[in-house]
């Protein structure tokens, strides 16, 4: 019989700050973090809105150990977000590592700690690269590749490439916390974090680790990423303003807003947590994973494939659909994906789909891409711990789903279902159960 695996710590990073407390407070109050983009001038882009971390929320030099501060020079924003999430998750799990306390022995053997982190295609800093490129510009404004090869590229720092390799999130996290078990980087857009969680569970169940840092982080707050998303038709134009920017499952839904963040959770064998005197906060009961083949372009998804993922997760959990008390769908406000998710919920839950409790996060934290699943998972754990479901944002007239605006409420869910449907067609369904 395979080991039971749970989540013993959550470290979400979102527009509201680092850790669960600021996020949870905002979600219960029904606030949104969506605002005008602050990290660059997005006024000319298709969508001028985003859900960013404020400039004072993340000081990476104060988070990493003193001896590691020099390495922050080669960290892009995505890496910083992952490191912040790791610290918060380990703190929540009461795990000591070389990175949390170098003077105390770790509470887990380094080679028994794995790390699976979702990441995106990281854009090089356009100003850093631009400053180098311009040195190879001819008088007529054109670019001289010959000069670039001889001299221009020398204006890039030698470690420039390492700032934007997706696996550098896990690289830095494993170095800081001395995690020597299996380490992987999953790059499947909005499904990355749940796929990482699934892999963490497998790694533990096959005996290669006792606990793993798992999740994802991403920031697409730059001109190239915005341009790519706008061109793919995934972004709302923001004309309704920040408060009503994202309307999941609504007939007027016209796209998402990009967020930044994600974070990590500690996935841990229940017996290992118990042996160190810590109960897990949620049990990972089932994970279903499927691939959509019909339409996985920038705006597409398949209800049938999402439903297959849910059925897989239910089967693995040994549960009937009736056992699911609340769902955190992707709920992106991208109409075609919303339609597919609604279709999937109706396929699995039948008439009950219209009454299912839904938790909608994109209107509050934006679409955090490869990190988004981490926020969904952290919120699901918090719902199970507290019995509360966050307030819902949006507008009236939701067809076929219980997604209209609602205040936070106590429902004491026993099983939460978390869904993703990624750009690229990977679908996941994770069922978390209360630890009690």
């Amino acid at each position, binding site marked *: 019989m395979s080991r039971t695996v749970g989540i013993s710590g959550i470290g979400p990073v979102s527009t509201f700050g680092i850790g669960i407390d600021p996020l949870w407070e905002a979600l219960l109050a029904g606030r949104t973090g969506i605002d005008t983009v602050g990290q660059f001038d997005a006024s000319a882009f298709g969508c001028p809105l985003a859900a960013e971390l404020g400039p004072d929320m993340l000081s990476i030099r104060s988070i990493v150990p003193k001896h590691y501060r020099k390495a922050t020079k080669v960290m892009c924003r995505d890496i910083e977000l992952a490191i912040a999430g790791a610290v918060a998750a380990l703190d929540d799990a009461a795990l000591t590592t070389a990175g949390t306390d170098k003077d105390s022995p770790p509470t887990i053997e380094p*080679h028994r700690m794995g790390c699976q982190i979702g990441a995106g295609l990281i854009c090089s800093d356009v100003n850093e690269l631009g400053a180098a490129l311009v040195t190879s510009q001819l008088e007529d404004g054109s670019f001289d590749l010959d000069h670039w090869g001889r001299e221009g590229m020398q204006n890039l720092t030698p470690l420039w490439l390492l700032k934007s390799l997706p696996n550098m999130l*896990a690289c830095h996290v494993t170095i800081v916390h001395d995690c020597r078990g299996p380490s992987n980087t999953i790059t499947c857009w909005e499904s990355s974090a749940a796929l990482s969680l699934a892999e963490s569970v497998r790694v533990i169940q096959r005996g*290669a680790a006792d606990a793993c840092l798992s999740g994802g982080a991403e920031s697409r707050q730059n001109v190239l990423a915005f341009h790519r998303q706008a061109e793919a038709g995934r972004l709302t134009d923001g004309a309704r303003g920040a408060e009503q920017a994202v309307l999941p499952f609504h007939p007027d839904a016209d796209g998402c807003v990009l967020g930044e963040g994600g974070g990590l959770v500690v996935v841990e064998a229940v017996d290992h947590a118990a042996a160190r005197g810590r109960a897990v906060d949620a049990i990972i009961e089932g994970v279903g*994973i499927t691939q959509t083949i019909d339409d996985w372009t920038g705006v597409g998804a398949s209800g049938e494939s999402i439903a297959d993922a849910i059925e897989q997760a239910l089967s693995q959990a040994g549960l009937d659909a009736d056992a699911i008390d609340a769902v955190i769908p992707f709920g992106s406000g991208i109409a075609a994906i919303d339609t597919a998710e609604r279709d999937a919920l109706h396929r699995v839950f039948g008439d009950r789909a219209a009454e299912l409790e839904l938790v909608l996060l994109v209107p509050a934290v934006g679409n955090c891409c490869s990190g988004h699943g981490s926020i969904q998972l952290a919120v699901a754990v918090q719902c199970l711990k507290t019995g509360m479901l966050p307030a819902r944002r949006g507008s009236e007239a939701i067809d076929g789903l219980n997604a209209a605006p609602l205040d936070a409420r106590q429902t004491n869910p026993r099983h939460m279902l978390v869904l993703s449907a990624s750009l690229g067609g990977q679908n996941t369904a994770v069922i978390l159960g209360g630890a009690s």
Partner: protein
Amino acid sequence: MSDRTRVVVTGAGWITPLGHDLESVWARLQNGETAVSPIDRFQAGSFPTTFANQVRGYDWTTSVKDADRHGVIGAHTGFALGAARQAWSMAGLDEAAADPRRIGIYLASGEGVLDFDSYQRTSLSAWNKDLRAINDSQWHDTAVDAIDGAYELAQEPNMPMAHIAREFGIRGPAFNCLTACAASNQAIGEACDLIRRGDADVMISGGTHTMLHVLGITGFNRLTALSTRNDDIPRASRPFSRSRDGFVMGEGSGIIVLESEAHARARGAQILGEVTGYGSTADAYRITDIHPEGRGPCAAMREALADAGIDLSHSTDAPPVQYISAHGTGTQENDKIETRAVKTVFGDLAPSIPMTSIKSMMGHLICAAGAVEFITCLLIMRDGVIPPTINLNDPDPDLDLDYVPNEARSAPVDTCLSNAFGFGGQNDTLIVSRVD
């Protein structure tokens, strides 16, 4: 391990700089040929490195049923579709009538190729010399015409798997990992785990990548990781030589079909080998340096051997592994530490185990490197021929293992160990064995 599900290989294919089909590339590897030549993908004449192993004369549209169904694709996807077609056909999966929900995919794809010409034109047009930054609105206005959104979307790392899934109707578990040079060993190892758990009957796995573009070569040149032997290109890739000065860039894809033995036997599939062991670790040491004692590689090899049920203490005469596919990049550091690690793990047996690097002939395919080296192991076991490490006429006196210098060697091989280590500290070792 006796009662666990056995995972076998039933199909293999590759698109490489040495050719586009299994047998012709294999013949060239046995002949000690190289495909290295001056880069003509872009004007690289002034770069510190002017040469690479390019894939030439390849047309991906001949590998798919209907190219229009795939629309715009990146080079990484094109390579993967061709390799996957070969593997799928060899495995006879068209005739197998397998349940598409029981076929999954775990790929290791890197990112695609940024349209550098459009990118630099856009950035330079928007450059503000006084602020040393781009004007974001101006950047956007140029990008709307210059940067093609569909092309950019096609460069995402999870696009190759999505296209493979569409081409072959794959609807089961789907992952893409990106752990640099270790990625495709990791993908194959994790794909095996999914089959062993019963999550799928068949998994398509392997890797695909090209970093043979302006910013890829720029990045590795700045890291001083590439050979700069521009005056002696055919002999530039020289793993384990005293005068080695870095790796030579390659590109391409290797794809295999993995299957539970029971599933393969039930449909009478040809079995090419069995994946008997997998070990995966993180260095958790430094961003660019490998631990001087090869701590991570040693642990990965030991885990893989243990997973395969191989106890070296019982192997005093005939080595239980008859071939090691080295990571063997041709950098000073890798070759020294990999040699040290193999000697640490195998002790007195190490000198009697042939260990070669096909990167000496094919170059380094980065995310696809592990996959093409794994496929080479299958062919070595089939034909009893070990391909050489070429350009090894200037041995490093500190590196004293049997690297099969310059000429192929006939030898019966029943079990191979294949290493792949990545920038960022991931170490992944596979063991593949003959199945009679």
